């Protein structure tokens, strides 16, 4: 049984680890520090932590001022409030200035669960994809969350890192995380499955079942949404029968659309989208919601089968 971890626990611990070695690290939150786990950093480094209360616009624009003075600024809230709520602050004051602001959003997607639609961000990847300069990482598990945070510190410029609320299984693969490169879980296959975030685990299950049925699968974890690994996508388009893209996000504007744009312009093949079909979320337990919104391994299997039938 794979180890289950909260990505946000790893985020908080990684911040503390970084805070010890890099005095430029500053962390901002808007009254959700116990949920986002920035509270771990706050406890260790109270002088470098600022809680702005329930006022995300101010938090986001303040991050730009701090970054202009040489700080590496981590800004956290739930994905709903860290993106759409403050989109203009991110666009005009963070991304346009190309500042060292690292937005780490937790509680993304419908697996927020019982809190319901108002708290279920399924548009955040789309909103961030629109912005030049903005790097986007959607890590699939706990260890990859740490890799994403370290990457954001090593590289200049704004980052959006998307984390979930629930525990996720740690996935096994022989290939290390490399920023901007698809992580190959399985290379040779008749069909390709591309996934990000929590959907990678679902895709791993789907791939196993498909292989058992005699359908070989190329499985890619597209953790970096920008800059996108277009080579890996095109290679899949050329060498497999089609692509299934899986994300816990709207089918509009997210990873699937990004993949589709690359394929349509260069080597058209069928791209099927396993994602939220242009509807709002609702209350429910995460597993119930994944089923209700057709985001399970069996939905991925079905889509993959239709590409070879």
């Amino acid at each position, binding site marked *: 049984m794979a180890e289950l971890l909260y990505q946000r626990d790893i985020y908080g611990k990684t911040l503390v680890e970084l805070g010890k070695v890099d005095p430029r690290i500053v962390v901002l939150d808007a009254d959700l520090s116990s949920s986002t786990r920035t509270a771990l950093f706050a406890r260790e480094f109270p002088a470098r932590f*600022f809680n702005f*209360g329930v*006022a995300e*616009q*101010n938090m986001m*624009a*303040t991050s730009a001022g701090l970054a202009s003075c*040489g*700080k590496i600024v981590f800004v956290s809230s739930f994905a709903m409030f860290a993106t759409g709520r403050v989109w203009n602050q991110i666009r005009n*004051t963070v991304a346009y200035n190309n500042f060292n602001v690292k937005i780490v959003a937790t509680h993304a997607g419908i697996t927020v669960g019982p809190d319901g639609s108002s708290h279920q961000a399924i548009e955040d990847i789309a909103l961030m994809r629109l912005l030049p300069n903005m790097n986007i990482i959607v890590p699939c598990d706990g260890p990859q969350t740490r890799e994403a945070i370290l990457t954001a510190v090593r590289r200049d410029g704004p980052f959006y890192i998307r984390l979930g609320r629930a525990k996720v299984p740690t996935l096994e693969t022989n290939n290390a995380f490399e920023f901007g490169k698809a992580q190959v879980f399985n290379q040779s296959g008749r069909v390709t499955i591309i996934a990000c975030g929590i959907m990678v685990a679902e895709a791993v299950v789907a791939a196993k079942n498909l292989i058992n049925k005699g359908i070989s699968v190329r499985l890619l974890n597209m953790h970096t949404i920008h800059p996108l690994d277009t080579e890996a996508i095109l290679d899949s388009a050329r060498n497999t029968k089609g692509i299934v893209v899986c994300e816990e996000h709207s089918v509009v504007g997210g990873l699937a659309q990004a993949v589709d744009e690359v394929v349509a312009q260069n080597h058209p093949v069928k791209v099927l989208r396993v994602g939220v079909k242009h509807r709002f979320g609702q209350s429910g337990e995460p597993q119930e919601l994944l089923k209700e919104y057709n985001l399970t391994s069996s939905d991925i299997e079905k889509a993959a089968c239709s590409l070879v039938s």
Partner: protein
Amino acid sequence: MASSDDRKIQELQEKARHIRRLIVEMLARAGSGHPGGSLSSADLITALFFAVLRHDPKNPGWPDRDRFHMSKGHCCPLWYAVLAESGYFPKEKLLTLRQLGSMLQGHPDRRTPGVEVASGSLGQGLSVALGMSLAAKLDNTQYRVYCLLGDGEIQEGNIWEAAMAASHYKRDNLCAILDYNGFQIDGKIEEIMGLEPLVAKWQAFGWHAIEIDGHDMKQILNAYQQAKDVKGRPSIIIAHTVKGKGVSFMENVVDFHGRAPSTEETKKAIEELG
């Protein structure tokens, strides 16, 4: 002593007149832009750049420099004029305002030497200044941060979030300057979305408020000094000004919020500004 103070004030008045002339010339050449608010805050910002701000145009990255951020970015012709006059870039560049490829964009941009953070989308600059002010605290340095706000601009909710946070974090190195000229694009502030009682509002948010005539150099200099002396909370200089100040036919004319002068109007304006 009085005579040297008088001389300083006279010099600043003279400088402000020259800055106004540069603003009119830039806007006339550009053919579009915002003269009204650039002219109304010209005395405040001239005094700041030439008598208050600790900065070094030859070493713009000096870590201990005071910071200035223009939150009401549409008044950048004023910012560009004082930057050029200070020596951040050659004055000839002023005539490239708003042209394709120019370092002088229609709203402030980091490609301009001396501009540290872009602005233009109203309501965000006070937060930016707050971030700079917090960085000074983290780095244990003494620099001060000045931020120019427009009166229409403070209708934005983001401003009041920043106001709350700046006083919560006791940012006494932060000084906001409010250009209270009484007009916004659609008309008079009090008719569009009234702000009064404004001094009481800022005080209620924990700020030290200083109310002055924003065209009286002596009052302006005193206000900057007073703000510097206040400890434990941020200060705001609420400066009553005249929109379009210095060009008779632009004064209190809302049309000149966002329209450049014609050739004929420019000629008249330059005559007035000498």
